[in-house]
């Protein structure tokens, strides 16, 4: 077990807690950078997709995992990002100019939508965001000038420094770079006053308010930041899909994102990556399982959504902290071996809250 002797405030401020962190994460980045040499194009495309999902996951995690606000409408932000990006590229704006515009647009949309709907809480907020998802889908269908309507819209594949996005290694590196940048941006937000204000809103609105956190402003900010990350993911998703149609950005995509953060682990950025890997490969896994299942079950059309729902429920019941929570437990088991007790993570019951303010 590692004991950290703290001698400097910087040790609490820095991202890496100790040299072990630095070593393992550098190794991980090196592994990711050499990935195109190790595996073939198909799997590289899959990893790119996982990176995109993880970026969207970071967005939803900041909103749901850290600020405690539910959203069933994040597919709308993926759509906004994707369509804006495709529209800008079609009109000759270069890739690296288009991405910042996409981020700003989705940030603005997030803030504009956030200000009215974040007056709602809990279930009602979930319903409002659900409505957002359907409204966005209809806007994508009806606003033909901008989105091509039901006919869909091809996404131009740009070239960066002479390398085309058709080359899966190039696209993989772009996705990976944006994931790493997003991760750093999210970590930085969360270790600054703004991120702490988000957590404060999640845990006790009344205390946050009495300590000077402007609830309306910070909830809207959280929604906007969340929208910006998800919009960025949408822009990359547009390249991954290649041809945009409104029905891609439906409620099922929103639920996939929700599944991602719950399975990954609410309230942890590690969780977004774990969740993205899980959600990214789950359809493949289901496809493989179909072959082995009896025909009457295997050929059912609704198998995928049903399994998604089942997994969501099972995780909420048996591992509310998700894959990351399980990973922390396994790590602690080996650190404390053989003295680990199951009760370590048992939540202490205290009865201090009442509905009195």
């Amino acid at each position: 077990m590692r004991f950290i002797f703290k001698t400097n405030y910087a040790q609490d401020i820095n991202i890496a807690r100790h040299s072990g962190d630095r070593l393992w994460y550098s190794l991980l980045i090196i592994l990711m950078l050499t990935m195109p040499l190790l595996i073939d194009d198909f799997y590289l495309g899959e990893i790119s997709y996982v990176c995109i999902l993880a970026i969207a996951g970071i967005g939803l995690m900041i909103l749901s995992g850290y600020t405690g606000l539910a959203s069933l409408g994040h597919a709308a932000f993926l759509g906004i990002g994707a369509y804006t990006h495709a529209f800008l590229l079609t009109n000759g704006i270069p890739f690296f100019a288009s991405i910042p515009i996409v981020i700003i647009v989705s940030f603005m949309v997030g803030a504009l939508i956030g200000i009215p709907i974040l007056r709602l809480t809990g279930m009602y907020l979930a319903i409002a965001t659900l409505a957002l998802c359907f409204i966005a889908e209809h806007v994508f269908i009806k606003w033909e000038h901008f989105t091509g309507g039901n006919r869909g819209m091809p996404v131009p594949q740009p070239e960066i420094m002479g390398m085309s996005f058709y080359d899966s290694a190039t696209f993989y590196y772009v996705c990976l770079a944006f994931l790493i940048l997003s991760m750093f941006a999210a970590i930085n937000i969360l270790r600054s006053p703004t991120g702490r204000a988000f957590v404060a809103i999640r845990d006790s609105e009344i205390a946050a308010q009495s300590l000077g956190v402007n609830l309306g402003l910070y909830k809207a900010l959280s929604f906007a930041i969340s929208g910006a990350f998800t919009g960025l993911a949408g822009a990359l998703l547009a390249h991954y899909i290649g041809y945009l149609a409104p029905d891609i950005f439906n409620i099922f995509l929103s639920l996939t994102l929700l599944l991602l953060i719950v399975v990954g682990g609410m309230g942890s950025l590690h969780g977004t990556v774990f969740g993205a890997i899980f959600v990214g490969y789950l359809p493949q896994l289901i496809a493989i399982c179909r072959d082995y299942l009896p025909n009457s079950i295997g050929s059912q059309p609704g198998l995928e959504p049903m399994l998604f729902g089942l997994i969501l429920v099972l995780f909420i019941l048996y591992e509310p902290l998700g894959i990351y929570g399980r990973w922390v437990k396994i790590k602690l088991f080996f650190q404390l071996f053989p003295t680990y007790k199951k009760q370590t993570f048992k939540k202490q019951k205290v009865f201090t809250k009442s509905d009195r303010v």
Partner: protein
Amino acid sequence: MSLFEVKNITVSFGGVKALNDVSFTVDKGEIFTIIGPNGAGKSTLFNVISRIYEPSNGEIFFDGENISKIKPHNISSLGIARTFQNLELFENATVLQNMLLGRHIYKKTNILSEILFTSKARQQEREHRLKIEEVIDFLDLQHYRDTLINGLPYGVRKNVELARALCTAPKLLLLDEPSSGLTNEETNDLSFWIKDIQSLLGVTIIMIEHDMSFVNKVSDRILALNYGEILASGLPSEIKENADVKQAYMGE
């Protein structure tokens, strides 16, 4: 000189008058205790001061300024901090993070400098931490810096909430039943701390409390409420002898 003044505050919930025409003043540097049986309107009064409840009538002055129209999230930057009767800590955060929230009103960075975590943001974190360490030393919280609130015993949680309020460097501190749920020993410590907060940090304190021996030990003046109305106010010795107070607590 009066630092804080409540003038003719009335709060009604439907037909119930939780507070009826309550007025009092608190002097700078005083420890002012509000007592009263359950349902007397003590917590309502605190919630009116921190602007969570809207009074139907009356005004509140702090430092000569009328604060009865100020937004609830701006109260703490005026220099008023509070604790809650039923602990409102951020449970899934560490003690340090809870206390850092107390420094929120001194935030100087905007979202862009935070995303880039510029040297200014880093500097700010360090300055906040320096202030927090002073409070940690003051309230003996050294052992708990990195502990999650979830895993702390009740007495320590109470202490952390007081610490968080002190991190805002308040001029006026509102304590809602600070000794409830504490052991005798902890209550004893608390009485010393409250005296120290008054004398060393120069903070004025308004406190709601039931433990009369504790109240008599620390308070400079006492206000007794019952059914939303003022029964009596004065020095601890006067309140002890007051016939109305005796009747409210013990009956005829």
